[in-house]
């Protein structure tokens, strides 16, 4: 099969499946689940073929909106280059595993088929983003992933919290997309094109730097929303209301990474706009730090992971902010992170599943003995996350930090280092509280190891978490340069030292602090409450949206409408009532008016 057909199948197959489930197969949920999973497997294979093929291709297809070449044309077109291939592989791989895992996790859920339809829809949208060769098309699928995540987060829609979380996620993303769209438009008027290749060609010629920076930042807004960067990060932790596999797939591995991917896609733009680049880097770093801090005090296992995700995304964004120097590092981290974070989430999922949907780590404990495989894999994932040397996470994080140093972004670098200390701390806390020590609730009392359909994916992911950075595996993923041991010793320097110190310090601190504790030893309210950001945002919405809206509603009802509708009507009516006064019914009065009129008439005409 040539690249073209593969790409098309990759794109359309999931859509087809979703449609089929939606239209007919709803009743037979088992069948639809299998169908969906099967399609995921198929896409994985295709993605692998694509990756193996290694041939770039630019696929321009039928026009979607066409007002003639001169004015405007949007084509459904696809770019297959190393970036796309790599991302595609990761997406399909994680996607397939999540499908597999879900088969078990969602076995007896009422809305099983709806769930799998959602997954397929997501796969479709994500593929679209990855393969898109122009901004508009990317924006289209950008929105669609938003929807699929809305559907999946709100899967248990009768839980008010889930429903609200879904809404919150979608709206927050919409705000990001608002900027994104403006960005696209600005880029369009600056470079006269929406196709990435043409933009890349034209961006050099742009003279209006302020506008270019603005454009880049607006485009970045999209990433802020999708990749949950400060200040739009609030939706991601809430999104954990969705089924855990979803969290693993969408809110850890792939969708949230879309922002990073998009930035990598338009790296030339960031290159051109320095100011924007700096901002991006800083935002990434700050996000990483704040998220890490918030993670310290969370008790819900999934929320901890969620904040760590945000923090890791911060790394990646920061890397993108470094421009071409850092974009590869960023993508590298994206890949590795996809694996180990998916692993962690699925692990958490297994735990939650085993503990009858108990998510509070302080109510767990001692799971190491009850579910050894899960523990092992989870530990591996954690190790990768905290960047224990020679795990995949280690290499990718090193790459980012070095890049930051190389690009001379000292501020972000420092922040990133602090994060490198915080991450080990809260992960250790998680591991110790949840898995070590003794059980603290009967939920966990009779927890037991999950079945193969669930632990096989864990195992596979654990493998990737360890080795995905190494040549053979990283080969198809990365455009240039990859990690190897030689590289580490070759450029062993400040960065490596600091991060290792951070690692050791973090682990140690957490170990001594949480050893054998039954409940939270140190309480830092501001962190537990996530810097009160949610509260602040809610207040803002109340005032600046609902408040204003209510006010305007009153204005519309009781000021504008009366002024424009009622008042003229009333005045006409009362004028009529007044005029009736002259109709007194007395002939002589009429004759009198008659006479007056005559006089006036004559006066007017004659004089």
């Amino acid at each position, binding site marked *: 099969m040539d690249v073209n057909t593969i790409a098309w199948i990759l794109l359309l197959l999931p859509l087809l499946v979703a449609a089929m489930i939606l239209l007919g197969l709803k009743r037979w949920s088992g069948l639809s689940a299998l169908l969906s999973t099967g399609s995921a497997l198929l896409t994985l294979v295709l993605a692998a073929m694509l990756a193996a093929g290694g041939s770039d291709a630019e696929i321009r297809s039928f026009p979607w*909106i066409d007002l003639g070449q001169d*004015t405007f044309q949007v084509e459904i077109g696809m770019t297959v280059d190393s970036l796309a291939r790599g991302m595609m592989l990761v997406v399909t791989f994680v996607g397939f595993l999540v499908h597999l895992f879900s088969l078990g996790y969602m076995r007896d859920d009422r809305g099983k088929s709806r769930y799998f339809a959602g997954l397929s829809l997501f796969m479709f949208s994500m593929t679209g983003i990855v393969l898109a060769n122009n901004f508009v098309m990317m924006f289209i699928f950008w929105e*669609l992933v938003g929807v699929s995540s809305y559907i999946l987060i709100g899967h248990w829609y*009768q839980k008010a919290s889930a429903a609200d979380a879904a809404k919150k996620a979608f709206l927050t993303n919409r705000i990001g997309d608002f900027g994104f769209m403006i960005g696209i438009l600005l880029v369009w*008027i600056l470079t006269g094109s929406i196709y990435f290749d043409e933009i890349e060609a034209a961006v050099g010629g742009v003279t209006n730097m302020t*506008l270019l920076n603005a454009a880049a930042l607006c485009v970045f807004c999209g990433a802020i929303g999708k990749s949950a960067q400060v200040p739009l990060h609030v939706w991601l932790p809430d999104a954990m209301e969705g089924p855990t596999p979803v969290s693993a797939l969408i809110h850890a591995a792939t969708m949230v990474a879309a922002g990073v991917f998009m930035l990598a896609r338009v790296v030339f733009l960031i290159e051109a706009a320095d100011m924007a680049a700096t901002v991006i880097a800083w935002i990434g770093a700050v996000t990483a730090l704040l998220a890490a801090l918030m993670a310290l005090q969370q008790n819900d296992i999934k929320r901890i992971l969620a904040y760590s995700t945000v923090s890791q995304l911060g790394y990646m964004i920061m890397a993108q902010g470094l421009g071409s120097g850092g974009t590869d590092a960023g993508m590298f981290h994206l890949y590795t992170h996809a694996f180990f974070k998916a692993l962690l989430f699925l692990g958490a999922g297994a735990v939650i599943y085993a503990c009858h949907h108990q998510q509070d780590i302080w109510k767990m404990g001692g799971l190491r003995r009850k579910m050894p495989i899960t523990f092992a894999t989870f530990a591996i994932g954690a190790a990768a996350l905290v960047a224990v040397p020679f795990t995949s996470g280690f290499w990718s994080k090193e790459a980012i930090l070095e890049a930051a140093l190389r690009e001379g972004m000292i501020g972000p670098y420092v922040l990133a280092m602090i994060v490198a200390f915080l991450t080990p701390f809260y992960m250790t806390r998680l591991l110790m509280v949840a898995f070590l020590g003794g059980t603290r609730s009967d939920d966990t009392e009779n927890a037991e190891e999950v079945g193969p359909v669930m632990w096989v994916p864990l195992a596979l992911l654990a493998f990737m978490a360890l080795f995905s950075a190494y040549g053979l595996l990283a080969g198809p993923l990365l455009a240039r340069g990859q990690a190897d041991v030689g590289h580490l010793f070759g450029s062993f320097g400040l960065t490596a030292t600091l991060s290792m110190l951070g690692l050791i310090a973090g682990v140690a601190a957490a170990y001594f602090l949480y050893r054998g504790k039954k409940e939270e030893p140190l309480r830092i309210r501001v962190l537990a409450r996530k810097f009160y950001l949610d509260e602040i945002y809610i207040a803002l919405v109340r005032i600046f949206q609902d408040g204003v809206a209510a006010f*305007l509603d009153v204005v*519309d009802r009781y000021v504008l409408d009366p002024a*424009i509708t009622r008042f003229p009507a009333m005045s006409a009516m009362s004028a009529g009532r007044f005029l009736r006064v002259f109709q007194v019914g007395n002939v002589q009065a009429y004759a009198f008016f008659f006479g007056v009129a005559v006089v006036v008439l004559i006066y007017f005409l004659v004089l």
Partner: protein
Amino acid sequence: MSLIEIIVLLPLLAALTIALGAPARLTALGSSVVVLVLSLFAALNFRFQVEGAFQFESSRSLIDAAGMPEISLAFGLDGISLVLLLLSAIVLVAAVLVSPRENAIVGSSRLYYLSLLLIGGGAIGAFCSTDLFFLYAFHELALIPTFLMIGLFGRGENRVRTAWTVTIYLSIGSLVLLVGLLMAVVALGGSTFAIADLAALARSPETGIAAERQTWIFFLLLVGFGILVSLFPFHGWAAPAYSDAPIPVAMLHAGVLKKFGVYGLIRIALPFAPAGAEALLNLVLVLLLGNIIYLGLVTVAQKRLDRMLGYSSVMHMGYIFLGIAAGNKLGLAGAVLLMFAHGISIALLFALAGSIRERFGTLEFAKLGGLAANAPRLGLLFGFAAFAAAGLPGFANFAAEINVFFGGFADAEGSLGWLQWTTIIALWGVVISAVYMLRAYRSIFYGPAPAKLQSKADLAWPAALPVLILLVALISVGFVPELLNQYIRHALDGFFLVTPG
């Protein structure tokens, strides 16, 4: 009797036969379906290679007295009117399907269906007329039927008052409009009412209208058409009308009839008074922001679905105006496509709102909830509709809005003018509409269901038929905008393009 004449006159004749005693629902349904089929047929036989404005033309002269203007019963289709014809036909069929059976109607079912046909037929006639006089006259045809429908079959205790408001408001609008049109015609020689000829006259510099007169004409047309489209300060009638009117009327009015105003602006105001349009551009921008932002926020504040839908439909008019304000090919194409998309989607939403009320007896957000469990099919369809209205890709609305937004930026040479800033602000409306749509969906279908709503009354397939018709139209155009875009493009190619403000 040419094809187009049949299309236009069939609904009216059907109305007449109903008045004379034909079975109401059957006749209405039959005629509207035939109209739909015929318009699809027309669409398929549209000749793209032919240059120039109108096709399927037919004309009968009505006045040939000395010193009298030449008025003729003339019909024809170009890309734009074809799209709107399709819109009208589709929504008309859906509306008839949605309306209750004779025995379920309190009062005269004849009058009910007759009025429906008159409203729909009026819209179709207006879109198909190539003569200014009838373009105006056909639209007015809907006035009294609307009045009676809202007053007789409407809902809510103050329906009569609403009927009054709507009727008087619209009639005032059309009076202003009439004067504007007459001014334009007179300024163009006053001898003919054929739109094509007038446009030709307006284009040529020697017969064109003097600039400052153009400003006045455009202003009058803007106000006149604006009132019909519920442009910002003149929107007072719309929301109550839609919430109190019977569902089919709401569908036809919000979906089809309202588009007449915008159609008129594109078809008449822009080509006849381009200079006026340019002069008043900033005014238009302010007003359309009023629609999008001000009314958008008002929409957010609504507590009942039908009122919310009413306001939202008013709000979305702003985007159509944005496309017109852009005035370039891109914007106009977007505007026309958006007319179609919005028409279908709002009709869809009203239809669904109707069935929700029918099943659960209320549309107050506070009293509803968790219906997705009771009525999953309803939930699914409404979800589609809501997302469509929120401008989600895959639905026609998105394709149209994209055009509009790009249109807004099309003429900015590397810097931002008023139009661009307006577009940027208008973009925020996309967020707003997402807010109220999702809120509505959340509070009706998600969350725990109130105890008394446990009735399992999902949408049965026959009842779902009209909804599906609309949905199919919406999605197919959403996936392949070219379906309609080709017509619009053809029209705009032959269209006197306005120099953008």
